[in-house]
């Protein structure tokens, strides 16, 4: 597990920027559908996944904590 973790950290920090996109060129990147995180509207389906799948985060089940046991 330690080797896997170090490998993952290595990948994460080995990437670096190869281009610089100026602010005035970011109009497409600023489109709401380009956001890299989950959207607020998707939070309940993410909760369902955390309930029914073993590969869940620290809070067991629902956003903000809970046993996720039902």
């Amino acid at each position, binding site marked *: 597990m330690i080797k896997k973790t170090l490998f993952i950290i290595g990948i994460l920090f080995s990437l670096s*920027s190869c281009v610089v996109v100026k602010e005035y060129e970011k109009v497409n990147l600023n489109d709401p*559908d380009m956001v890299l995180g989950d959207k607020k509207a998707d939070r309940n389906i993410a909760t369902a996944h955390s309930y029914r799948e073993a590969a869940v985060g620290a*809070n067991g089940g629902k956003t903000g904590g809970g046993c996720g046991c039902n």
Partner: protein
Amino acid sequence: MSMLIAQEQDAEKVYKKRVLETTEVDFISSYYTQDGDNAAVSGGIGTEELTDVTATFIVSIPLNDDDVLTIDAGVSAYTSASSSNVGPFDDGPASPFQASSGASSSDLWSNITGNYAHSSDDRNEIWSAKASVSSEYDYFSLGLGGSYTRLFNEKNTEVSVNANLFLDTWKTIYPTELRPFGANGNGLSDALFNRNTITGNTNYNPNFTEFTDKGRNSYSIGLGFSQILHKNVQGSLSLDVIQQQGLLSTPFQRVYFSDVPDSFIDDFQLADDIERLPDARTKIALGGRLNWYLSERFVLRTSYRYYFDDWGINSHTATVELPIKLSDKFTIYPSYRYYNQTAADYFAPYEAHLSTDEFYTSDYDLSEYAANQYGFGISYTDIFAKVHVSTFGLKSIDLKFYQYDRDTTFSFSMVSAGFKFVMD
């Protein structure tokens, strides 16, 4: 000189954009229903029927140019045929495939989370701190967390670190037939066994002990890295390390041993024990996302996540979503998600564990399976927020439907609706 300094300060004030222009309110609601034939409450057999209705308000308030306070409050109410069978002998013939009317057939989860975020003047640094409280009948959770984000390279690159802590406490609820064999119980002399007749092995005598540790602590740390790759493409990587300690078993989930004679009341098999899992677990997840603005009409959103833990579970998740802009107001969201996982080392199906095992569970959420999820959504956006409710303008509506099917008997579906309002 002092006038010059004052003018410079005024100039900064003029050009400093507020992090959040006005108060925003999101209302998110969903209806969830599931079914399957492998209920963990009845040891890997029995109905998994469950419905859940959730409603959440998220209010984001700009405190000044730099600081935003977000209050997130929600409730979730469920009714479950599966968990009703914690006590299956309340009324009528008991069966793992029929719901009971016991107190455990429904519950209400409630949560409130407060998050405070501060951005630096140049908007290249963001600090945040949050606290949460959530409660169910048999579970209480207190959460604390914080994060730091740094942007550089003309805001083309972003790195972040976050940490979270959850301090949870169980109110242990055990299957009805095991309670007489716990502390201060009177075994087969209990009224439960006077009211009901045991068949099969009539000398029912489970080797049951109650949990002494009722706490569960979870610690997580996450690293994030995102990068603009092109004026139409951006991606991110994330690493999460999670450590859990304490009572990681669910106290009301039964286990049946193959080397113990079976006892029944009606059609319901009496528990040999409850699931027993180690009191520590380390989880690691690596995720990646890549979003591509294909054209004014199409955006491609993709993600992949690899997960492994020291209970023997390995998992892959891949998602793809293709937002299609039909007009400046309407967008549709077809999506697909694939998920698989290997079984936990401690999982075995109904009647497959041995009483000599140290750890055991028949919870199929810890079994090996693959699942496909198909989704479809539609959103309405009005950037001018013309429709009003009091002083709030309706900015967007999101409607989504998901169908999730495992390669076992389990499936669920969900309908969700989200409404975003902005204050005038």
